[in-house]
């Protein structure tokens, strides 16, 4: 990348900038993207005999309950990520996985349906990113972010307990300014902060061509219900809601150990929208009868990245995870893994110039960004469904019928499963929506839902839970 301030950034020659023995690599942020980057960078460097000093700059302590140690996220580790990490040798222990998710419950005003995992196996994990909500008392689990950070430390990374405060370029190298007054010179700097961190603005202001991502606001609230009560009510299902509440795009209720996490996605989320959702009969039915929605343990309204920068890299600097390019609405942790690993691979094997990142890291970001375009189309479809009662009934009818016939092709169930779980690329999901057999099945269910007698009998029958 050619920065506007050409004198401060070393021009890319496509081959000149490479990591060498003894180089210092800074990683800003110890969320999944930062820890994955450090872990894979050190693993690959070790394979090729490259000796690097990696420092992760992070002021938060993930052992602290409440927002001080939290990264404000729904906390779902997708089916594909669980598999990919296991194949990489990173197995998530039972102390980190708060609950294995074995099914999805789709709730709509026209009924509910339980969608079983294709293999009847726990392959989706609900985790606490930090050490739990504000009122946590019994601390007998490990934070997901802390677990990944320990993996990176195990590979040789060192944690610097400081807050990053700004960036300067000196003699073509990044200099990270710390709030405590320190100035750290690095040969490579990986920025892996979230979009809610104020430091992202400082990177935009540094004149390296970085632009902060476009964002939207979400809502996350935690409730303490207790493990046994959760097992009896919500179970090991993630409950998702397609309701006709204005401005509400999507909502989910996720069981985690002693807690339940409520996540909302929509336009201009405010207290009125939250209350409308929590008062909806479809939501109340998931919780115990005496549940009081106001008795919350913790809540936040974080931003999420909905469109990343075009070029999340520069000479010796790259942006991974949420402050770079991430997946739309779903599987942000999976996107952090993919981008962090691609960035580490590029740095070790291809170089650390903007040209090297453009050739090898850029395509991975580009693939995610292109898939998000398909994701937007898929979410347009769900928006249409939310506004057409007959379409909702058709989806419910088709899914219920598929779930009652094990062994047969489950087209709608598969589409819904992958939409909710984030397990497949949006492109795959969208193309499956257009398959003739799927369209024909939906058209038939749609027609039956239009027929008054069939629709009426369907209302009585087609709830599977």
């Amino acid at each position: 990348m050619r920065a506007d301030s050409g004198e401060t950034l070393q021009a890319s020659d496509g081959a000149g900038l490479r990591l060498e023995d003894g180089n210092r690599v800074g990683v800003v942020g110890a969320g999944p993207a930062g820890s994955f980057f450090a872990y894979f960078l050190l693993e690959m460097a070790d394979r090729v005999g490259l000796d690097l000093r990696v420092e992760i700059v992070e002021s938060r302590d993930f052992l602290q309950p409440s927002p001080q140690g939290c990264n404000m996220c729904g906390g779902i580790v997708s089916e594909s990520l669980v598999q990919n990490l296991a194949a990489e040798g990173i197995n998530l222990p039972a102390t980190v996985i708060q609950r294995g998710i074995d099914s999805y419950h789709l709730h709509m005003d026209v009924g509910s349906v339980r969608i079983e995992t294709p293999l009847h196996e726990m392959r989706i994990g609900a985790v606490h990113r930090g050490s739990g909500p504000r009122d946590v008392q019994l601390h007998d689990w490990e934070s997901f972010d802390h677990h990944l950070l320990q993996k990176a430390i195990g590979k040789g990374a060192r944690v610097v307990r400081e807050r990053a405060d700004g960036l300067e370029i000196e003699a073509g190298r990044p200099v990270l300014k710390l709030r405590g007054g320190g100035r750290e010179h690095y040969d490579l700097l990986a920025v892996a902060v979230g979009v809610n961190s104020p430091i992202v603005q400082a990177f935009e202001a540094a004149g390296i061509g970085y632009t902060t991502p476009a964002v939207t606001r979400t809502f996350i609230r935690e409730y303490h219900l207790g493990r046994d009560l959760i097992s009896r009510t919500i179970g090991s299902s993630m409950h998702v809601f397609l309701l006709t509440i204005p401005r509400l795009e999507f909502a989910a209720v996720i069981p985690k150990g002693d807690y339940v996490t409520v996540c909302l996605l929509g336009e201009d989320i405010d207290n009125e929208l939250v209350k409308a959702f929590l008062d909806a009969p479809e939501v109340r039915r998931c919780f115990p009868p005496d549940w009081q929605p106001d008795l919350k343990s913790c809540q936040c309204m974080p931003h999420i990245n909905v469109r990343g920068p075009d070029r999340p890299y520069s000479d010796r600097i790259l942006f991974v995870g949420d402050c770079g390019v991430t997946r739309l609405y779903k599987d942000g942790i999976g996107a952090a893994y993919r981008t962090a690993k691609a960035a580490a691979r590029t740095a070790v094997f291809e170089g650390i110039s903007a040209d090297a990142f453009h050739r090898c890291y850029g395509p991975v970001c580009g693939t995610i960004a292109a898939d998000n375009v398909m994701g937007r189309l898929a979410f347009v479809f769900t928006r249409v469904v939310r506004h057409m009662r007959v379409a909702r009934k058709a989806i419910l009818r088709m899914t219920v019928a598929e779930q009652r016939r094990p062994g047969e092709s489950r087209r709608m169930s598969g589409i819904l499963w992958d939409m909710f779980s984030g397990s497949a690329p949006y492109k795959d999901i969208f193309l499956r929506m257009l398959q003739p057999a799927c369209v024909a099945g939906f058209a038939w269910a749609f027609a039956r839902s239009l027929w008054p007698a069939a629709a009426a009998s369907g209302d009585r029958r087609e709830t599977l839970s």
Partner: protein
Amino acid sequence: MSNGVMGRIYEDGEILVRQGEVGDCMFVIQEGEVEIVLEKDGHQTVLNRVGAGELIGEMAIFLHEVRSATVRASGRARALTIDKKNFLRRINEDPSVAFRIVETMSRRIRGLSDQVGELRNQLREAGRTEA
């Protein structure tokens, strides 16, 4: 303690993979132990035992052939299934994901070489004894 576990529980003797079947997945053992059993002419020979963190059934990812051996739980075991389609898609994006499989296969080839050497020695010793 949280009750979150990944994968599926297999009781003692339960089959994960059956010899002769077409495979479309591999497994990562999360807990416990499984044994790899070769079935031939009505006889069963335990070839190997593998434990937590180990990959099994990886040949199905790359070969269009039936499973070469049966894998069954030896005691209670927990294993995570890795889909062939998901994994090949990931390898296509990032070939280094296959590095661990290459490592696993290399270790197994080394183990097999050691076993072949040992068996040849035993045969040679047996031949001398008969002579």
